[in-house]
């Protein structure tokens, strides 16, 4: 009887210690709920120029951008003109682009990236070769 009690006690202690070892003992961090936000940027791009739109993200997170439309000033849809699309950060009077693609317009996101917490910009620019101004529409998503 005495031995059984000793063995049971030892097993109970061992079990409690094992459970404790599986717990790190740190209190959980509060979870910040971030909302996915969709924004539009429409403007006219001149040959040789860069246009940008600034936004903020509350924490390191993913973002995507779709160059959805390129239309000439006469209303003709241009499905072949290649334009630069990028993410970056506002600096001086421009947007310093840190990740980019050169693409035609389309209805799938051409650019997906990882943005650190803070202020960023989505930029549309002439990568070289534009001869006439173009109206563009960009739809981009980021956490807010």
């Amino acid at each position, binding site marked *: 009887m005495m*031995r*059984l009690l000793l063995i049971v006690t030892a097993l109970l202690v061992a079990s409690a210690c094992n*459970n404790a070892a599986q717990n790190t003992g740190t209190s959980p961090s509060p979870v910040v709920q971030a909302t996915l936000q969709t924004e*539009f940027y429409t403007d006219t791009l001149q040959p040789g120029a860069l246009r940008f739109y600034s936004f903020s993200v509350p924490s390191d997170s993913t973002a995507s951008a*779709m160059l959805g*439309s390129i239309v000439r000033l006469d209303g003709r849809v241009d*499905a072949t003109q290649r334009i630069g699309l990028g993410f970056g950060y506002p600096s001086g009077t421009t947007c310093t682009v840190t990740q980019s693609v050169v693409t035609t317009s*389309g*209805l799938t*996101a051409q650019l997906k990236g990882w943005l650190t917490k803070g202020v960023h910009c989505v930029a549309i620019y002439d990568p070289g070769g534009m001869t006439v101004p173009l109206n563009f529409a960009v739809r981009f998503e980021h956490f807010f």
Partner: protein
Amino acid sequence: MRRTLSAAAVLLATLTASCNSNSTTPIITAPTTSGTTSVFSGSIVTGGTATRSFDAASAGTATATFEFLDQGGVPLQLGLGIPRLSGSGCFLSRAVTVTAGPGSSVSTSVDPGAFCVQLADTTGQVARVAAFRVTISAP
């Protein structure tokens, strides 16, 4: 002694089983969707446009087909794009000039999200007002 050890072994097994919390998680398979088809119908005036928004539930191909116009042989512009925030109008990504009938369509790849179809009389050949029908298929 033998009974003591047996009882301890049973107890140890019981404790171990109660501490293990390996539960199997059921695997949930998302149902496959075959896309949606909708009809966009209305009237268009001389030099006018008609726009309809639609949603793509998943990535795939969206197609707009110009089925019918009650003024034969009139060419119209049929396009796919992203809807304006104001809700009226469409920023076009792809557009073709078509007359109503078989093969008069425009298609493009889409992500999940909101898109739009636009029918436009860019040449001003519609006589006053014409009734039309467009079929939209989206993933």
